[in-house]
């Protein structure tokens, strides 16, 4: 064993990158955003860098510079393709890397999402996950017309608390449906003519405040048993969702001290939820501008801010510097209790290869990152066992 335990690395893919002016960079391919080839190239690059997984952003409305309302901007990337389908489209083209699409759980059906992610797990032979996200945007509720969501000023509203409670129920349903078939339910018993042993299929009979779902799933238990469930969290209410239902939580610490506080809070919630013994990764989210010369990274950030007409602000800490400086920061945050990182490249065409070709070799030199893929499934890469089925007789 190396003295420093390896850390886990994911990359968050969104448009041409996380900086709103990233699409104007010469390396960006803004006219190809809706083609499979564009995304296949990005994920291939991430896989060359031996990353644990990539996430794909999504939403039920056009992107906006406002958190809670649409904007009328025409100077930023707008429009996207469905993240689950995008991940499925990429799956047969890759072999090792995990694929974690975002899914909005506020207006959608847990039955549909459960079978979609189970199927993503089949088409990727065990590399699927999902990042669940709520939406409190009233205008997105109007796209569905099934309920109204009151206009709120900020995410500390009781409206949001309620949406996260609903999300926890949603994930519970998704997870129960994944377990609703035991692994050996398909028997193909020619003697009795039975294709399945129906005693190994289970009604989930979920009844909650927001919905009821009967089950079982139409899709057999996926290769990983339970594909990865992940969520981004900035405060206590979503920390609780992470603690109750996730395998990986993404958090946004300002510094090591803040990371320590967040991890302590999530671990406490995990205990309250009765999951203290279960592995739960806490990843730090960081926006990264990476160049071999720190001044170049800063200058690039300034140039992009100028193109955007305003300084880029993010929920996550923004890092501009060299791969070695970033490696120092990641190891410092790891020492504070984080187990991995989801890096948000400021400009995908520049900062993704800087991660895979600069940061990764730097971490490898420090024995802090894998030299080769060591597992066939995403759970395996993250050191998570294939869970026992909750419905199977012990």
């Amino acid at each position: 064993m190396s003295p420093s335990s390896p850390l886990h690395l994911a990359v968050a893919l969104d448009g041409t990158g996380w900086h709103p002016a990233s699409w104007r960079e010469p390396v960006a391919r803004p006219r190809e955003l809706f083609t499979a080839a564009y995304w296949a190239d990005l994920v291939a690059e991430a896989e060359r860098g031996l990353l644990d997984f990539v996430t794909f952003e999504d939403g039920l409305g056009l992107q906006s510079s406002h958190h809670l309302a649409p904007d009328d901007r025409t100077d930023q990337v707008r429009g996207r393709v469905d993240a689950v389908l995008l991940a499925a489209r990429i799956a047969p083209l890759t072999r090792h890397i995990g694929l974690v699409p975002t899914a909005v759980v506020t207006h959608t059906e847990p039955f549909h999402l459960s079978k979609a992610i189970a199927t993503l797990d089949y088409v990727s032979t065990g590399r699927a996950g999902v990042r669940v996200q709520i939406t409190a945007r009233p205008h997105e509720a109007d796209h569905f017309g099934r309920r109204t969501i009151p206009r709120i000023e900020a995410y500390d509203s009781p409206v949001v608390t309620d949406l996260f409670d609903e999300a926890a129920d949603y994930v519970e349903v998704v997870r129960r449906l994944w377990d609703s078939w035991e692994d050996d339910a398909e028997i193909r018993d020619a003697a009795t003519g039975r294709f399945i042993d129906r005693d190994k299929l289970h009604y989930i009979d979920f009844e909650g405040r927001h919905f009821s779902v009967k089950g079982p799933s139409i899709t057999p238990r996926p290769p990983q048993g339970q594909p990865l469930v992940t969520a981004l969290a900035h405060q206590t209410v979503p920390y609780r969702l992470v603690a109750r239902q996730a395998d990986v939580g993404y958090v946004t610490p300002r510094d090591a001290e803040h990371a320590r506080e967040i991890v302590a809070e999530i671990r406490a919630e995990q205990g309250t939820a009765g999951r203290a013994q279960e592995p739960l990764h806490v990843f730090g989210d960081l926006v990264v501008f990476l160049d071999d010369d720190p001044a170049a990274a800063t200058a690039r950030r300034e140039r992009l801010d100028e193109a955007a007409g305003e300084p880029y602000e993010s929920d996550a800490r923004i890092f501009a510097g060299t791969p070695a400086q970033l490696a120092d920061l990641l190891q410092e945050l790891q020492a504070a209790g984080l187990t991995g990182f989801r890096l948000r490249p400021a400009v995908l065409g520049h900062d993704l290869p800087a991660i895979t070709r600069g940061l990764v070799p730097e971490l490898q030199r420090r024995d802090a990152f894998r030299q080769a893929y060591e597992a066939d499934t995403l759970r395996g890469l993250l050191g998570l066992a294939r869970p026992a089925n909750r419905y199977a007789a012990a």
Partner: protein
Amino acid sequence: MTKPLKQIHLAAHFPGVNNTTVWSDPEAGSHIEFSSFAHFARTAERAKFDFLFLAEGLRLREQGGKIYDLDVVGRPDTFTVLAALAAVTEHLGLTGTINSTFNEPYEVARQFASLDHLSGGRSAWNVVTSWDAFTGENFRRGGFLPQDERYSRAKEFLATATELFDSWHGDEIVADQETGTFLRDAKAGAFVHTGQHFDIHGQFNVPRSPQGRPVIFQAGDSEEGREFAASAADAIFSRYAALKEGQAFYTDVKNRLAKHGRGHGDLLILPAATFALGDTDAEAEELAKEVRRQQVSGATALKHLEFVWNRDLSSYDPEGPLPDIDPDVSDNHISKGRAQVRMYRDPLAIAREWRELAAANKWSIRDLVINTGNRQTFVGSPETVARTINEYVQADASDGFILVPHITPTGLDTFADKVVPLLQEQGVFRTEYEGTTLRDHLGLAHPDHARGERAAS
């Protein structure tokens, strides 16, 4: 003057969750693993088929209050499999059945527009409706529709989705890196729909896809279903593959097009068809018989009799005579989640007829179910099958067929290798793909170039 030969359209239906699919055959593979879907799709593409077809089910079937276990059970998610298949094929159309009752237009439109982008214009949507509370138990919107509202919802669902597809016109994304203009119009994708079933507004977030809209299939057979198809569909997945019934259906539906301002070629009729191929016609007949026996085990025969009798018949011997008791005609049906049981409108009369048939032919329960069940549509040598398919199409029984093999995933291989070359020799089936989109394969106009406005929009 001789009529020019029609070009045949062919599609491949992934074997489904009913007793047509013979899972007990030693050659039968997984219905879930992606490798099965990839093999099936590659075979269809090798044979230059127009498209692959995936069905959908949203609740496992039950009979007598228990999950039905004699057929293939379980399937993957339609959209997700189609998106993955787009990665292992280049030309093949990707058609998925998606229910309009247990979904919302904004989400389904996003998914189809996305699939169309990710496949380079190869997506198609078979719009089906459903109303049963049994399936609704799996969904948060739960409940169900009064039966007479299902088509009104389906029509409005499709019309609303069409408005969403059309909310982007295809010229909005400028992405001018010099000037910094990404979108030509801040209101790209704006829509407002106010109707009986949907009251939604806002901005759609998937730009115009290569086909503009997915190709629309419809499968219903009722008066309403036919009218819906004539007004709004590009193709019908029909059940009338036999010559006479096919011709009657074809004529009926094509004659409905004019009043919707549509031309004869704007709606394709594509029946589902099964087949049994042998080196000779006699060998194929033998194989067809053998397959029908595989499809109807003794246990399956009893369960199929229960569809009509609506009673637990598990104590009967499938090799023995039919039950003396009459069917239970109460409303609560023994079978749930299955469309075909609604076809038996007068169970008492059917029971009488079947008893007479069985007595006259000395048939057991199993013999009866085998002999009254569907015979394969095309049985014969490759020459016979190719000739028959071509005759049916030229005689306007259909515009082609959606083939349903009985073995997963290799059930299409022989057809691809033996029958398709004969159709190609006759000059009635493509030897290479001529276009890139499914609309190209089917000879359908891009919606932006279609004649006139659609009734659905």
